[in-house]
């Protein structure tokens, strides 16, 4: 299961190497012009039949949110900060792997017997325990600036999976599947990007190099379709698990190109592939936010797997949604022509 390999691999933003190597082994036999750019993006071309004259870019980000070592306490505990968006409230007691040696550690939490405050402990005050008991021992084991990942393995729950980094290894897995399938009518310029979680950094330079006419981003997006609290004014779930891949209409980073949104929805309806629209009411952005602003502007769209408990060690994603992400894009790409992008 490629999804399992990808999710269990560690690739916190700027440390995507293991994920990149893994993806390369899965696409090398299908692509040409493979290269790694200055930021670490993995770029390649999946040759098409040549029937359609469009430069099409498809992107999925390789990086995941994590933590980074910033210092040591005299008792050997590590100080850290977040890399990407992490809610500090999920960290107490969380298992982590520190640095390139994947040293096991745990976010310490004062016992409930002696600590009962409901006020959130900020990330600056949390510490990671790797088992050493002095500053020297900590410094010998771990360098400042080393990245820290959640220590979590993918578990199949039935129709769903639980694991870390589904955002966006699920998108990477879908893009790999699309590359490995039948060629498309056009050359597909694929970008497995770095540093999405810290500001869409990789996608920007990838798009600047690829110079696409149109771009599709394969993402994993938030979902919070839990039982509703009648006193809670905001009942938005963002997406619903099992409702099909989510097409973004608008998010914090972009208004999707309406022609592409319409085209994707029509494709889903025509082919009987379930899809849903992501609620526009919540934060979050994707690589498309950077791509659509490159050069003279690139019509862009996002198709995303709904995923609960995003940016944590144990997110939950529906496998049908995941499979339908690549099905919807395959059907759309097979039908994609320059006419889709003609202005009314």
């Amino acid at each position, binding site marked *: 299961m490629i999804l399992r390999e990808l999710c269990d691999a560690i690739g916190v933003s700027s440390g995507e190497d293991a994920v990149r190597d893994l993806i390369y082994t899965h696409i090398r036999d299908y692509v040409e012009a493979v290269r790694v750019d200055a930021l670490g993006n993995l770029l390649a071309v999946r040759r098409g039949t040549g029937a359609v004259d469009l430069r099409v870019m498809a992107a999925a980000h390789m990086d995941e949110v994590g933590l980074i070592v910033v210092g040591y306490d005299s008792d050997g*505990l590590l100080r850290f900060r977040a890399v990407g968006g992490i809610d500090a409230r999920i960290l107490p007691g*969380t298992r982590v792997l520190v640095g390139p040696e994947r040293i096991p550690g*745990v976010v310490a*939490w004062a016992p409930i*017997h002696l600590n009962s405050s409901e006020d959130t*402990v900020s990330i600056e005050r949390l510490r990671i325990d790797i088992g050493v008991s002095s500053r020297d021992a900590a410094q010998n084991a771990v360098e400042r600036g080393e990245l820290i990942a959640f220590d979590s393995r993918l578990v199949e729950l039935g129709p769903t999976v639980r694991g870390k980094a589904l955002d966006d290894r699920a998108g990477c897995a879908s893009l790999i599947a699309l590359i490995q399938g039948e060629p498309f009518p056009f050359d597909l310029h694929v970008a497995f990007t770095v540093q999405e979680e810290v500001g869409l950094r990789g996608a920007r330079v990838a798009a600047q190099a690829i110079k696409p006419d149109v771009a599709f981003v394969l993402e994993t997006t938030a979902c919070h379709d*839990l039982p509703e609290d009648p006193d809670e004014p905001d009942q938005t779930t963002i997406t619903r698990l*099992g409702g099909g891949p989510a097409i973004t209409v608008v998010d914090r980073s972009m208004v999707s190109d309406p022609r592409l949104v319409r085209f994707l929805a029509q494709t889903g309806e025509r082919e009987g592939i379930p899809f849903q629209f992501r609620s526009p009411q919540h*934060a979050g952005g994707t690589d498309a936010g950077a791509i659509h602003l490159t050069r003279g502007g690139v019509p862009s769209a996002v198709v995303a797997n709904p995923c609960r408990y995003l940016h944590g060690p144990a997110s939950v994603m529906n496998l049908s949604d995941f499979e339908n992400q690549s099905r919807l894009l395959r059907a759309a790409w097979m039908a994609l022509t320059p006419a889709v992008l003609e202005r009314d």
Partner: protein
Amino acid sequence: MPLDLTEHLKQLSETPAPSAHEGPVRAVIQAAWTPLVDAFEQDGLGSLIAVKRGTGPEPRPTIMLCAHMDEIGLIVAEVRDGFLRTEKLGGTDYRALLAQPVLVHGRRVLPGVFGAAPPHMSRDRKKYPPASELWIDVGLPADEVAALVRIGDLVTFDAPFVKLRGERAVGKSLDNRASVAAVTVCLDELTRRTHAWDVVAVAAVQEEVNLAGATVAAYQVRPDLAIAIDTTFGEQPGVNDDVSFALGEGPTLGRGPNFHPGLFKALRQVAKDHEIKLQVEVLPGHSGTDAWAIQVSHAGIPTALLSIPIRNMHTPSEVVDLRDITRAGRLLAAFIETLGPDTLAQIAWKLPRDNAKEERTP
């Protein structure tokens, strides 16, 4: 075969057994103790009572070692739309459960997770969410969940035992499986030593709810001396130094009204004689351990408390120093070896003698 402490503790830690549901861990402990003891007894609540007979003349006095084997957990309180709301079983800390993996013990074991809103939408990050907003997600359709999970089903932490740097390890339920492992170390040591007294090792149930196991086990065993073995707070940020103890500096020996001063001194002396690191833990009242219940069984039992410092108590990620477990086990064995026909008299309370003159006579 020599005892592999790390492997033993891993098995103990990863076995799910919240209060009143200790069956799985009782089986693990019984298997580990069977080659080390002479007989097992039962009581009415399910504690495992193991007897290792001494070499002294009958009737032999008895020392009871008591380590509780139950763990904190959760029980399903509501099933709604395929999600599960829980209540605590023991002193579980919901603040350390957001986004954490769990196991739901329904008609089959279901891996799940405590749902945490993503940072994209959490509105108030200044407080931890109340228990009423915490739902477990087992990733199954609502009708399947309704068929597989009932109110009252158990929920335990899905947290592997992992070795850390040095001699430390992290795992769930090290409170109090670390102490059970210390008793195993002691029983293993005793197979290579002679002891005059009978030793009764109790893996007690239901400490985390109300000390129920120790209360009735002490009544049934009716020991002459008792030592409870539990965990105590390890030094860590956010915890007062007065009530926490360095990991790796030895177990702690309780001192205060819950403990017999003579027994305290005798244990401390044995640690000194054998150069076993030991810290003193001052407990001004209720120790919050089985020792509190044992001390007042029958006509009163001289009781001591040996504790192993752990960090992050009552989270899925308790941290222990393995050397402290070995030290606790060795100290218990060394102390048991010293027990003789005069021990009780030596530690007993003494009244002032009537004839002071006689006392001065050589």
